[in-house]
């Protein structure tokens, strides 16, 4: 799983790509948290899931973990462009009430 980030107008965009499961989530967690720590002064963080081809419930735990991390530095977190199946899992978990989809 690849994690890349960039800053634009005080918004941290984090792009995930590849397959999110128990195996791949471990390194993605570390990379994501590093990006969040290095950009603690942003207005908001948007995690883009458009290139996540597969995701199981590991993705729910992963996103909630990043949500807590961002909440500790009072930065709101958003999810952007999950594919059809990721959206199905995220809906089922009710995660959008915590981490809304970016407009």
């Amino acid at each position: 799983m690849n994690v890349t980030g960039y800053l634009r107008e005080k918004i941290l965009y984090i792009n995930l790509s590849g397959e999110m499961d128990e195996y791949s989530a471990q390194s993605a967690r570390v990379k994501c948290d590093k990006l969040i720590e290095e950009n603690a002064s942003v207005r908001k963080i948007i995690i883009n899931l458009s290139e996540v081809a597969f995701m199981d419930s590991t993705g729910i735990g992963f996103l909630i973990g990043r949500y807590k991390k961002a909440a500790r530095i009072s930065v709101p977190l958003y999810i952007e462009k999950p594919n059809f199946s990721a959206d199905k899992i995220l809906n089922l978990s009710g995660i959008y009430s915590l981490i809304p989809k970016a407009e």
Partner: protein
Amino acid sequence: MLSDCFQEVVLFYMTKNYLKLQFYSLPQNQAFARDAVAAFCLELNPSLSDISDVKTAVSEAVTNCTVHAYRGEVGIVTVECEIEDATLHIRVSDTGKGIADIDQAVQPFYTTLPSDERSGMGFTIMQTFMDGFSVNSVSGEGTVVSMSKKFEAEVMENA
């Protein structure tokens, strides 16, 4: 007609099929397991949405073996698949520590490992994404998760 004969042969091969996979409960085998099951059910001409449901359910079941059944050690995970009359049956079994309270384990958001960023949604996803779902477990002996999904026949255009 030749095409009719061909149809019969195809129908014969499509009625029943079986696959058995065994592998170590290593996290890097999860993608292999779900992709193998997905490839196995391609003969049912599934929709992308059905394939994705099956992959996710298999991934959840196999993750449970790695994370819960054989926590801290490596054991054998067995995945068996059977196709019968356009229905895919999947059985994922381990010989790990077993589940003490199944009713509790299948509750949405219930997890024994909240500190590990576990969502507790694995069984809920298997239940929701598949048509049939059951868990049998004996403490200290292992767990068997059985799931099934019926694939709706897709209308195919004549070539």
